């Protein structure tokens, strides 16, 4: 769809194979004609057994679907990963510093480096968080940073996810499946492990327990329940960490502390990894009609008797309009230039930029400021005239509600499709844990747009996943 040919991560323009893919290429050539087809069938059986499903909102084809898995791994060299992980660590440190500042002294606003209105009038800003000091000063402990690649050395951060990023269970299950499908490949290549993610998650959560907690803090995963699209992941992570999976009704607040109902009586909970959105976590402080949360939870958090992971109000740091200021945020708090650049972004409230956007809408990507999951989005080159006219009207009516970016030629990776192996566009979501230290799982979740030419990788829009291999030196 894009005018410039996309960078292919396996093959150079002359058809030669890039160094990190040499072993995989040789292995693929060794496979008998039917082998990949059989492996794909095996993979499907493995995933059915693992039970990984996701729900597509608004879908008529039943609520649960198997997320498509592509059996050809994506490979990242050790050197490429070093560069990426440094940039990611810099970003999450700066964003946590930003969160502490906007909920305390607001120096960055006073300095005029980020517009005050953009933060204080933003619906993602949580006034109730003002002055609260979370354990170890960390607000966002579990972060997914969406990265796209457009060239051998050109990586861009597409967005930061500091609220409740999902998908890490796919990363783990994709690896599990690959280990079963192609064990010999792991003998030929030194692939950095991802299997310790649940253990690292547990360590991270334990490290941010309140000071009053016992030496082994009690951890609960708080889920909205079985109808949530990521319920599988909630139960999977709780199980892997050896933590309790709870719904709001399983917990209660008494005497300013949070307890879980158990058959042996109430057990105090120290850390809650909550997968419920801010508005719904506590009807006493936030939405009074919420049936999902725990009444009094936020005050118990404020009293320092429990840690919420992630903290409420972290959405102000991954708001799409705030995103354009992240390089500024990194400089302000760390005094360093951003190691990973942002995708250039047009601000539609600026008349000149808006005029450019409206004239070139067919070439651009338009995103709703508060949209996610690929909903409320226009990919210019793949759009119809009616869709472009619709978005033109929307941008004129509410320019502040949209950000616009060039259509990036996302890199491609070899992907197993009906016709054999063909390049498909991919992105990457590495998962970052921030606690007593920053722990970045090597690789992350690669999402692949399975339709030829498509740039939309979201699972809700027909995307699949791949195992992501970071090579060790």
């Amino acid at each position, binding site marked *: 769809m894009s005018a410039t040919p996309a960078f292919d991560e396996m093959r150079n323009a002359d058809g030669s194979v890039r160094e990190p893919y040499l072993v995989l290429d040789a292995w693929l050539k060794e496979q008998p004609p039917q082998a990949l087809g059989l492996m794909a069938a095996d993979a499907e059986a493995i995933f059915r057994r693992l039970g990984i499903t996701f729900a597509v909102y608004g879908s008529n084809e039943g609520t649960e679907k198997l997320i498509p898995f592509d059996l050809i791994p994506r490979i990242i060299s050790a050197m490429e990963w070093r560069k990426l992980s440094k940039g990611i660590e810099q970003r999450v440190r700066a964003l946590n510093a930003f969160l502490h500042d906007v909920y305390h*002294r*607001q120096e960055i*606003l006073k300095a005029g480096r980020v517009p*005050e209105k953009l933060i*204080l*009038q933003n619906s993602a*800003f949580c*006034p*109730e*968080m*003002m*002055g*609260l000091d979370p354990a170890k000063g960390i607000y966002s402990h579990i972060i997914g940073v969406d990265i796209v690649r457009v060239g051998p050395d050109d990586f861009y951060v597409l967005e930061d996810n500091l609220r409740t990023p999902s998908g890490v269970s796919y990363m783990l299950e994709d690896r599990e499946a690959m280990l079963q499908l192609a064990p010999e490949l792991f003998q030929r290549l030194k692939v950095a492990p991802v299997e310790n993610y649940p253990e690292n998650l547990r360590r991270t959560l334990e490290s941010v327990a309140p000071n009053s907690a016992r030496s082994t803090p009690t951890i609960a995963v708080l889920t909205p329940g079985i109808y949530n699209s990521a319920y599988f992941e909630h139960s999977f992570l709780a199980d892997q960490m050896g933590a309790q999976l709870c719904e709001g009704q399983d917990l*209660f*607040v*008494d*005497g*300013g*502390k949070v307890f879980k109902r158990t058959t042996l009586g109430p057990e105090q909970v120290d850390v809650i990894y909550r997968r419920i959105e801010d508005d719904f976590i506590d*009807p*006493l*402080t936030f939405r*009074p009609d919420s049936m999902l949360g725990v*009444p*009094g939870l936020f*005050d*118990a958090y*404020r*009293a320092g*008797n429990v840690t919420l992971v992630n903290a409420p109000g972290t959405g102000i740091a991954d708001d799409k309009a705030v995103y354009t200021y992240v390089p500024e945020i990194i400089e302000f708090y760390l005094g360093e230039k951003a190691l990973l650049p942002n995708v250039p972004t047009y601000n539609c409230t600026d008349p000149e930029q808006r005029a450019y956007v409206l004239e070139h809408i067919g070439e651009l990507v338009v995103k709703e400021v508060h949209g996610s999951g690929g909903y409320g989005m226009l990919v210019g080159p793949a759009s119809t005239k009616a869709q472009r006219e619709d978005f033109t009207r929307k941008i004129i009516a509410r320019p502040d509600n949209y950000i616009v970016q060039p259509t990036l030629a996302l890199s491609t990776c070899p992907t197993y499709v009906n016709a054999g192996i063909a390049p498909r566009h991919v992105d990457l979501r590495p998962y970052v844990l921030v606690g007593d230290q920053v722990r970045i799982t090597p690789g992350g979740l690669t999402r692949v747009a399975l339709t030829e030419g498509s740039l939309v990788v979201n699972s809700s829009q027909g995307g699949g996943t791949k195992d992501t291999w970071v090579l060790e030196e």
Partner: protein
Amino acid sequence: MKISIRHQLSFAVGHGNAHAVQHILLTPLDGPTQKVLRWSIELDGMDRAARIFDAFGNSAQLVSQIRPQGDLVVTVEGIVETVDRHGVVGRLPRDPMPALFRRTTPLTQSDLAIHEPLRDGARKGGNRIELLHRLMGRIGEAYGIGADDEEAHEPAAQTQAQSQSSGGEQSQEQDAGVKPEADATTVTHAFIGACRALEIPARFITGYLAESEDGPAAFHAWAEAYDDGLGWIGFDSMLGICPTDRHVRVASGLDALSCTPVRTVPDLGTPQAHGLSVEAVAQ
């Protein structure tokens, strides 16, 4: 002035609730305009309550009961010594950044007709205190609060005392041509909305109003607006004055919702105000 306060609220809990929790915002703090000599809040579960400072610097309690039955009664008693500083509160140690109080909320939308004529004055950076007094005057006119209308507003202030847990959900309905109904919450929201539209930080204040020859005791509401020089200054649009030593300041927030004196889950509705007495005591 020494002011003695006794305030009792009760909620019908009913049966069948495994738990009830409350967020209580009924504790005044010491400041330039007042010193709390004695204060107590009685309520089932208070002995185990978590005591916290909320986002706006208020002293709050998180109280809970297991299998509550019958009525939940909150009894507040205390003595506060007040000083008339013409409304100037200044800066309090736990105040969040003033800029926070430029955030508009659904309850603090401004009426263009009220704030727009003042915009030029606000922009030119003239005397902010004078501007705020003019704004209070405009609010008074808009809501029909005036010196010749003493009797009309007093019962309305009392209404506020009766419905203090409603979180500012007073009816906003207005008939064309009829001046909107004035009660302390409504006019305070209007004042705050206008301030914020003029980019002046403004916050909602709840507190007690001592009875006097000019009016009865009330659980009351007024606003504070921010001046870079003097800090926070009170404006009681309902009475058309800056708060005096009859005002005991209890809590501040973005709007009535964030200052609700007793929030409860399960929602127990509007409390029955059993009794309220706010009296000056002999020195």
